[in-house]
């Protein structure tokens, strides 16, 4: 694995290599080199299987961290390749020509995070939602509960008491008086 890490670092300036398990490592590259890295990994290093691609909202850093999980069947080693893109203008190069299923992941990221993949098939179509008017819902600043409460009616009659507050009210109400 060391060897691959060095090659990646040398060729593509990859950094932050970490071995999570014997058969899983992660590495970070620049977003604009991601496609080259994945192509190279697929064609030269035997990482032929794209397990999934997804994004993590790093809202504190104003970035999206993209993760592409590739797998080498020969060595049984999996690699999580990360890159970060700007959260304000999230655009990423499409890899739909590298793997036949990549376009669905990209369509998903477009809908769920608002990350654009120019050229990816049907990337602007709705994926799992229909008539969605809110912001991309997987962004961390989207509050699912608030949206749900505002949109979908709840059955009334639910009310709960906090034990400490209830006991105070019943046993020593004068404490604040």
């Amino acid at each position: 694995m060391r060897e691959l890490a060095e090659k990646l670092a040398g060729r593509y300036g990859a950094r932050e290599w970490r071995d999570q398990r014997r058969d899983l490592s992660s590495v970070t590259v620049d977003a604009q080199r991601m496609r080259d890295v994945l192509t190279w990994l697929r064609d030269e290093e035997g990482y032929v299987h794209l397990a999934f691609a997804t994004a993590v909202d790093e809202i504190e850093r104003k970035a999206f961290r993209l993760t592409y999980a590739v797998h080498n069947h020969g060595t049984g080693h999996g690699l999580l390749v990360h890159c970060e893109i700007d959260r304000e203008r999230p655009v990423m190069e499409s890899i739909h020509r590298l793997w036949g299923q990549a376009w669905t992941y990209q369509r998903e990221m477009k809908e769920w995070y608002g990350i654009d993949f120019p050229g990816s098939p049907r990337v602007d179509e709705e994926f799992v939602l229909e008539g969605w008017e809110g912001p991309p819902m997987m962004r961390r600043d989207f509050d699912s509960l608030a949206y749900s409460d505002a949109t979908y009616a709840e059955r009334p009659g639910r009310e709960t008491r906090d034990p400490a507050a209830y006991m105070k009210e019943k046993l020593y109400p004068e404490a604040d008086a």
Partner: protein
Amino acid sequence: MSDKKGKPVPLANEGLPAGERGLFCDAPPREYAPAAKIVEDFWNWARSQSLWILGFGTGCGAIELRPLMTSRYDMYRFGIQPRPTPRQSSVFVIGGYASVKTLKRIVRSYEQMMGPKFVVALGSCTINGGMYWDSYNTIKRIDQYIPVDVYIAGCMPRPEALLAGFQELKRIIRAGKAEGQNEYARNFEWYKANQKRVIKDWNMPDYNW
């Protein structure tokens, strides 16, 4: 097709020549006027003995319909059987949670069903949101959108519970209390308003409401 920005979609027959407007249904559902008591009782008995379920697995509860319709529980012997199309069905089983996208299909399928029609709702999700109570994409109370005749508690209810639910439905039908369909007709405006509040992509091809 769907309007991406979620703006109100124009009515389907808007701009059509007058002669073609009739292709789209403008008439709201009507309440069912019962016949004379003795006749109606007989009909109710007959209805209760042949519950034809719409085979639409709207949520995870549908998985327990499979054992129910095969040999172990064999619901056919109780006069219950699945049908592939709403036009032939009298019972709609809401299999748990309904996402907004599915809700639209539920409404459409329900409206396509011939009367008299009944709805059985399975599990926590249909009663008060269940475990998806904070999800942005699932409704919490199905009775806001279509009328429900029988609820079966469980997550998910076992086949036996489903059978018991159908027996209860039969009982209600025989007693002439399965009023969901009339409820829907009576409160059509209210149901429509609720539906439209959550279904933003309101595109129902040949209806005009």
